[in-house]
């Protein structure tokens, strides 16, 4: 385990930053940034997740090997997510042309 003991002060500062991030992401969702709404939302989420990994999970104070494993894992995750996007990118803007018969349209 890491020898470094993270102080409660740092934990509290990270917690408050995460709270602020949550407030900002809700605020941003109510603004119309067009296609950038999702980019901003995921950007804030990634910032928050990074803080959790670095401080709550002590990655910042971990050995270089541990950090390398984390970076490789995230890289692998990005590959997997990017592969799911290949389907999305090759679709028409509207899928209605290929859509199956409407389900309970009359309901």
């Amino acid at each position: 385990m890491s020898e470094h003991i993270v102080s409660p002060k740092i934990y509290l500062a990270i917690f408050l930053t995460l709270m602020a991030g949550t407030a900002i992401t809700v605020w941003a969702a109510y603004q119309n940034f067009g296609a950038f709404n999702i980019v901003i939302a995921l950007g804030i989420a990634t910032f928050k997740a990074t803080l959790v990994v670095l401080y709550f999970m002590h990655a910042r104070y971990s050995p270089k090997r541990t950090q390398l494993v984390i970076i490789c894992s995230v890289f692998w995750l990005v590959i997997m997510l990017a592969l799911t996007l290949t389907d999305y990118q090759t679709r028409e803007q509207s899928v209605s042309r290929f859509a199956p018969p409407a389900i309970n349209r009359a309901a």
Partner: protein
Amino acid sequence: MALICDARTAFGAGSNTLDLTLGGFNTVVLIMSSLTMAMAVWSAEVGKKQLVSIFLIATLVLGTVFLGVKVIEYKQKFDHHLIPGSGFDIRYHAEHPTATDNPGKIAEEREELEKAFAKDPDLNAHAQLYFSLYFGMTGLHALHMIVGAGLLVWLIKGSFAGRYTPQYNTPVEIVGLYWHFVDIVWIYLFPLLYLIDRHH
């Protein structure tokens, strides 16, 4: 055309049925539980045995609050016919408001749904995709929370026995890593599920 461009997507219509107050509250609760978990690790590292128990119990309580709120949200979805299947109808709640609903909000909802249906006649089919993902992802997340709660009960028992010390605290540290990972998943799920097309 302007009317249709301005309409919510099917996923946006589904997302707007979620209760942002409950979802936001749960986000705060879960991040707070990560803080108490981190504090439990710190307490063990500096040898404050009583604090380990207190922070672990706080984490368990907050985790249980999260799951309780999730139950309320799921119940709401059942009541509003938002479970994918033959009974699904995203308009159900707007057309069958209860006495406690704000009439102005219901009228607004009905108008937004009308616009969304004008843009996408198969809105109900596409919104069911959204709700399948919603229940799949939040359900899997909740399952991880339940596993985490079980691990916390085990840790709390150990902490009562005074097992976790500056020399030996690996179980607290590792369950902490797991708990933070579940928190990270929620950090992504919250904007992805609750915050689509909210500006309409």
